[in-house]
């Protein structure tokens, strides 16, 4: 059962990244869109994520619940030492979720109120994945000091370091990239397709650049990143697969593909996550002086893991078909406006 629970945990995180991350990305793209085109981007984006908006963010809840039920040491450890970035991320979640709902459901679409909702939405779309990435980067980079005695070492330097921050930026860029690729498929006319392809190119370059920064930062913070990623066959293969799929992605965009690029983009991001996950497995938090928290040793007792695994299996029997049907039903674009 432990394996089942770990697999669910991995997929919850992955799906949150692929679906929720693309939602963040849509906001990030809006942030970097010229004023004349903002409303077009917004309309396309709204059609794409309106109906599935709530469901996309459920994966985060599922991941958190799995952590605190199944791996309480890990959950408590993260909550204690990464309190500040988690808090910042939560602020982003709140601001973003409410601004998104407010701007769509405000009965009077006033210019100034809409502008306010928009700016809250786009800035929080940037901040949330930034801090999500910072949290993830910190958990895996031996920056957390479980023996820290003073405030700064325990609660600030645990995440406020070059490595974590560059991982945060890399996350933002990936989210934006994912969203741009998804939006290409949603766009209804040539003009928009061109715009989103351009955005995807820029974001791809930005992601490369941030990825490079991550390696540089790893050097300054004495993190053997290259060794982690290239040092074992599975991670290496995953990275190679990710690179190949990036090439295929651009080929298929050049050929005017819409669905295929999405598949390649999702595959590419999944491979990056797999590569990171695999090198560190089974560790979930790697602290200073080799003090790690691992999903294989720091889990709840068998009774709890068994019931949790059963609940997840039974739950997914209900959730997955319904979710597929939701995506399927709103796959075509017309009609979403009826309600507004």
């Amino acid at each position, binding site marked *: 059962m432990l394996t089942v629970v770990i697999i669910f945990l991995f997929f919850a995180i992955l799906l949150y990244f692929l679906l929720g991350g693309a939602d963040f990305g849509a906001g990030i793209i809006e942030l970097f869109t010229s004023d004349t085109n903002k409303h077009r981007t917004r309309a396309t984006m709204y059609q794409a994520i309106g*109906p*599935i*908006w*709530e*469901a996309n*963010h*459920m994966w*985060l*809840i*599922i991941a*958190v*619940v799995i952590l*605190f*039920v*199944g791996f*309480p*040491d890990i*959950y*408590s*450890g*993260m*909550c*204690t030492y990464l*309190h500040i970035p*988690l*808090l910042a991320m*939560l*602020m982003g*979640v*709140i601001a973003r*979720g*409410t601004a*998104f*709902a*407010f701007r*769509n*459901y405000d*009965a*009077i679409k006033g210019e100034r109120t809409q502008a306010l909702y928009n700016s809250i939405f786009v800035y929080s779309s940037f901040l949330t994945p930034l801090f999500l990435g910072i949290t993830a980067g910190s958990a895996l980079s031996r920056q957390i000091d479980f023996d820290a005695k003073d405030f700064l070492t*325990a609660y600030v330097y645990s995440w406020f370091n070059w490595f974590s921050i560059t991982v945060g930026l890399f996350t933002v860029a990936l989210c934006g990239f994912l969203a741009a690729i998804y939006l290409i498929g949603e766009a209804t006319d040539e003009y928009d397709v061109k715009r989103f392809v351009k955005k995807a190119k820029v974001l791809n370059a930005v992601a490369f650049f941030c990825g490079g920064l991550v390696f540089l930062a790893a050097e300054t913070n004495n993190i053997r990143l290259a060794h982690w990623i290239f040092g074992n066959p599975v991670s290496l293969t995953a990275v190679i697969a990710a690179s190949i799929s990036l090439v295929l992605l651009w080929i298929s965009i050049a050929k005017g593909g819409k669905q295929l690029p999405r598949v390649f983009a999702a595959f590419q991001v999944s491979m990056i996550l797999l590569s990171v996950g695999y090198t560190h497995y089974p560790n979930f938090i790697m602290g200073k002086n080799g003090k790690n928290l691992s999903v294989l040793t720091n889990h*709840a*007792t068998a*009774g*709890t893991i068994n*019931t*949790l695994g059963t*609940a*997840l299996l*039974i*739950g997914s029997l*209900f*959730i997955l078909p*319904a*979710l597929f049907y*939701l995506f399927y*039903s*709103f796959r075509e674009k017309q*009609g979403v406006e*009826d*309600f507004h």
Partner: protein
Amino acid sequence: MNDFLAARSQMALSLGFHIIYSCIGMVMPVFMAISHYKYLKTQNPVYKNVTQAWSKGVAIFFATGAVSGTMLSFELGLLWPKFMIHAGPIFGMPFSLEGVAFFIEAIALGFFLYGWNRLNKWFHWATGVMVGVSGILSGILVVSANSWMNSPSGFDFVNGQYLNISPIKAMFNGAWFSEALHMTIAAFSATGFAVAGIHALMIYRKQNVEFHSKAFRIAITFGAIAAILQPLSGDLSAKHAAKRQPAKLAAMESYFHTQQYAPLVIGGIPDTVAKKVNYGLELPGMLSFLVNDNFKQEVKGLDQIPTKDQPNVPVTHYAFQIMVGFGMLMMAAGIIYLIAVWKKRGWMSKGWFLKLFIYSTPLGFIALEAGWTVTEVGRQPWIIQDVMRTADAVTPMPGIQYSFYLFSFIYFTLSLAVIFLLQRQIKMVPEIYDIKK
């Protein structure tokens, strides 16, 4: 403000905020489903308008409920890591099932909100019902987690170790049924009265009377029935509290001295130094009767509980008086509504009748917050009754007061924003939905 107090205040603030949205999220879909059903049956467009107007309100509340809930699932760890490290694996079962219920709710909501004119109409209707059903289920599940804190079970506590953990037993702990029942009824009565009150106000102002009358009837029917059942289920809750948490019961009643023919004190100002209640109304024997079903049997008072294990008496007492007092008022209003429906149709359009419900708008939610104050403050100093103290659970990180200020600011702003949006929603009803013949 010290860190411990800040953590407690932040938790209370977040929960007090979340509960309002989650109750609305649980109950409004049920109202919507009724109105939607009437529309499908009668084809009267007013019912369609009511359904759609409500569903926009619900979307706003749902988003706020979802983000504040996401906050809470992190706050448990951010504020109480030493509690979660032990409690998570034990009371996690309802939370994992709740996650499933949320997911289904979010999916069903996507179908419902965007499904007008696109889905088969009965399938569309059913997705609305699913939103309500899974909302209520998640409410019941999370309350079962809370009732575990009041009545811990499903593990053996030996020398500070938590052994033989059984999440299923923990979920069906002794208090879950009475708490979940009382909470679900409270959600219906509070939301029912709040929604009915707003529509009553619009009827009173003679705006879109047909629209608002239909909405009013649906909401108040649920509100009235729930308000009448509430005291019955409250009595059950009190009996459970007396059995498992005598300190809480004694604090609710400000009942200082153990005695036979224990009196029920209504109102009054507890004096914790002199150990008596001033200006209260005493009904001799009633407390014994409520707790034990006979007027004589002794009830355990605060004098038998060590001071370090006692909750804050005045806060618990006042909160309890507010809940029960408002509960009685709402029950009376509910009875008046039922009389109007059965015997006195003419009352419905009378000014005093409408005013009664306009003034009752906030009562349910105030009672709800008061009730949670009773439950949570009454459990202190324990975070897990008789097992772990709240003070031992708090995060070691200093500076929590800043996070508390930040949260207070955010929740305050969000509340204003939601009120602002609802007001605009109501203002637009004539323009969007008025059907001019």
